[in-house]
C-alpha cells in the first residue's frame, strides 16, 4: 500500500474483514484457508447473483423510462420481485433440446459460458481488502478466463443445428477475433505504466491526489481517457451488448445462438451476459477509474468498496444507456471498426503512454507541452482515422421538386 492509507482505518473499511475473521474464528485452524476461499466464492456468487437479478430489473426499468413507459411494475412493490418471478419462470419452463442438436455441446455451452464469465471476478479488487485471488498476473488471468466466452457462444450456435444459430456462431467467432486484440491492446498501456500485471498494484498506482481533489486515475490522462473509451467499446463487443449484439441480433437472426434455448439454459446465457458485463466494467474501473480509490481526499471516510460499487454501477448504467440509444452495426462494419480504427488507435495510444511515462519528470511550462503533445496524439489520429472510417457516410442535403 502506498502512502494513501489513512492513518487509522475506520471500522467500516475493515468491516468485511471483521466478518470474515468472525466466521473463520469458529472453525479449526486447519480449515481456515478453505473457509476463506469458500467464503470469497460464496460472497462473489451471492453479490453478483443479486446484482445480476437487479441489473435485469434496472435495465428493463431504465429502458422503459427512456422509452417513456413504466417498465415492469406488477410484481411486488415497483416490480422489485420481478427478477425472482423471472427466475421461477425460467426454472420451471420446459427445457427443449432440438432432436437434431448436438446434445452434449448444447448442454455444455451455457455451463461453460457462466463458469468462464464468473472466473474473471476472482482477481478484481472490490475494495482495499476485498480481493479473492491476488495473482501476480491478475490482468492476464482475467482476460484468459474471459477468452472462452465467445467459444461458448460458438458452441451454442453450432450445437443448435439451426441456420440462424449457425450464422450467429460465425458472427461470434469473427467478433471475438476482431475485438480481443483492441481489448488487450488498450490495457497494455496501463500495465506498462504500473509495471505490473497485478490488479492491486494497478489500483495502488492510481492512488493519491493533486491538490487533494484531482485523483491520479488513468482516465484523467490523455492516453488513459482514450484507452478507457476504447476499452469500453471493445468491452461492449466482448459482452455482446448493443450496438455489437450481432450474434444475438433479434431483428436479423431472431435470437441467433439463443434461438434453440429455453428455460433455465436460456437464463444461464442471460446470466453470463450480465456477469461478463459486470466483469469487464469492474476491470475498467480497476484499470482506468482508480479501482476503489476515492475521488477526493476528504471523501476517503466512505469505505473503498462503496466507491468501487458506485463506479461499477455507473459503468453498467452506461451500458444500458447505450443499449437504449444505438442501433446495431453490421458485421463488416464491426470488423472494420476493430481493425481499421481501434487497433491502430490502441497501438498509437501505447506509444502515447510510453511518452507519458518518459516525460513524467517534465515540470513547469514543459508540463503543458507534455499535455499538448499527449492530447495531439490522442485527438489527431482519432479525427483522421474517424474521417477515413466514415468516408462516404455523411448527412445529406435534399432538393425539392
Amino acid at each position: 500500500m502506498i502512502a494513501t492509507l489513512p492513518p487509522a482505518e475506520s471500522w467500516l473499511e475493515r468491516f468485511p474483514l471483521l466478518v470474515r475473521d468472525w466466521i473463520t474464528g469458529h472453525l479449526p485452524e486447519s480449515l481456515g484457508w478453505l473457509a476463506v476461499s469458500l467464503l470469497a466464492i460464496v460472497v462473489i456468487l451471492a453479490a453478483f447473483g443479486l446484482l445480476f437479478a437487479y441489473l435485469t430489473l434496472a435495465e428493463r426499468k431504465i429502458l422503459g423510462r427512456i422509452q417513456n413507459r413504466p417498465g415492469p411494475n406488477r410484481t411486488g412493490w415497483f416490480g422489485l420481485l420481478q427478477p425472482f418471478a423471472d427466475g421461477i419462470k425460467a426454472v420451471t419452463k420446459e427445457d427443449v433440446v432440438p432432436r437434431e442438436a448436438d446434445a452434449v455441446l448444447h448442454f455444455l455451452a451455457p455451463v461453460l459460458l457462466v463458469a468462464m464469465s464468473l472466473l474473471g471476478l476472482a482477481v478484481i479488487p472490490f475494495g482495499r481488502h476485498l480481493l479473492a485471488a491476488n495473482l501476480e498476473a491478475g490482468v492476464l488471468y482475467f482476460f484468459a478466463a474471459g477468452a472462452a466466452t465467445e467459444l461458448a457462444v460458438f458452441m451454442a450456435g453450432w450445437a443448435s443445428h439451426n441456420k440462424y444459430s449457425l450464422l450467429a456462431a460465425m458472427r461470434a467467432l469473427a467478433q471475438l477475433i476482431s475485438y480481443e486484440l483492441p481489448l488487450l491492446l488498450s490495457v497494455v498501456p496501463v500495465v506498462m505504466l504500473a509495471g505490473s500485471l497485478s490488479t492491486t498494484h494497478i489500483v495502488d498506482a492510481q492512488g493519491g491526489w493533486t491538490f487533494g481533489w484531482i485523483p491520479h486515475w488513468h482516465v484523467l490522462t490523455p492516453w488513459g481517457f482514450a484507452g478507457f473509451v476504447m476499452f469500453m467499446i471493445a468491452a461492449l463487443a466482448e459482452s455482446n451488448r448493443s450496438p455489437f449484439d450481432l450474434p444475438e441480433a433479434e431483428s436479423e437472426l431472431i435470437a441467433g445462438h439463443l434461438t434453440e434455448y429455453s428455460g433455465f439454459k436460456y437464463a444461464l446465457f442471460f446470466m453470463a451476459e450480465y456477469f461478463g458485463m459486470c466483469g469487464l466494467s469492474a476491470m475498467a474501473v480497476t484499470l482506468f477509474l482508480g479501482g476503489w480509490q476515492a475521488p477526493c481526499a476528504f471523501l476517503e471516510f466512505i469505505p473503498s468498496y462503496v466507491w468501487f460499487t458506485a463506479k461499477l454501477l455507473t459503468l453498467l448504467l452506461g451500458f444500458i444507456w447505450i443499449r437504449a440509444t444505438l442501433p446495431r452495426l453490421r458485421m463488416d462494419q464491426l470488423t472494420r471498426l476493430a481493425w481499421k480504427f481501434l487497433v491502430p488507435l490502441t497501438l498509437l495510444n501505447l506509444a502515447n503512454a510510453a511518452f507519458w511515462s518518459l516525460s513524467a519528470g517534465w515540470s513547469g511550462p514543459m508540463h503543458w507541452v507534455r499535455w499538448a503533445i499527449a492530447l495531439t496524439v490522442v485527438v489527431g489520429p482519432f479525427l483522421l482515422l474517424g474521417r477515413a472510417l466514415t468516408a462516404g457516410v455523411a448527412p445529406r442535403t435534399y432538393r425539392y421538386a
Partner: protein
Amino acid sequence: MNLTFALIAFLILASAVLAATRRDLIHSALLLVGNWLGVAFFYLWAGAEFVAFAQALVYVGAISMVVLFAVLLTRRMRTELPLLVATRDRVVSAVLGGAAVFGVLAVAVLRTPLDTNPAKPAGSVSMLSLGQQLMGPQAAAVLIVGVLLTVSLLGAVVLASSDADGKEGAP
C-alpha cells in the same frame, strides 16, 4: 500433488486421443481446445503462472477461434465428410510424422541444461525478469518470431484480398 499431475496428464492425453479419432471436425477442434486448456493447467501446476495464463489466452481465446473459423469456412459439414479409410500407409506415415516431431522435441528438451537439483528448487520466475529476459538476451529470438508471424500474416492478407477483389462487389 501427483494426483493433480495425473489428472492433468489424463486430461491432456484423453482429449488428444479423442480429438484425433473424432470424425466430426468441430468436435475435434473443441477437444483440441480442451487439450490446450490441459496444457495451461499443467503450466499452472508447474508454477509458471504467467505462461499458463498466456497459454489460455492465446490458445483457448484466439487460436481456437482461428481453427474453428477455418473449419467453418471450408464449408464441409460433418455429414459430407467422407469416411477416410485407415490404410496402412496412412497409419505408418502418421506414426512416423508424430515420432519425428516427438524426437525433435525430446532431443531439444534433453540437451537443454536444466538445473534439476531437487534440493534447491528454482525460485518462481517473476514476470519482470521474464520480460527482461525476452527483451534482453532473447530479443533476437523474439524479433525473428515476430518477423516470421508478420510475414505469414501479410501473406494471408495478400491471399485473401486477391480472392476478395474478384468476388466481393458489394460494400
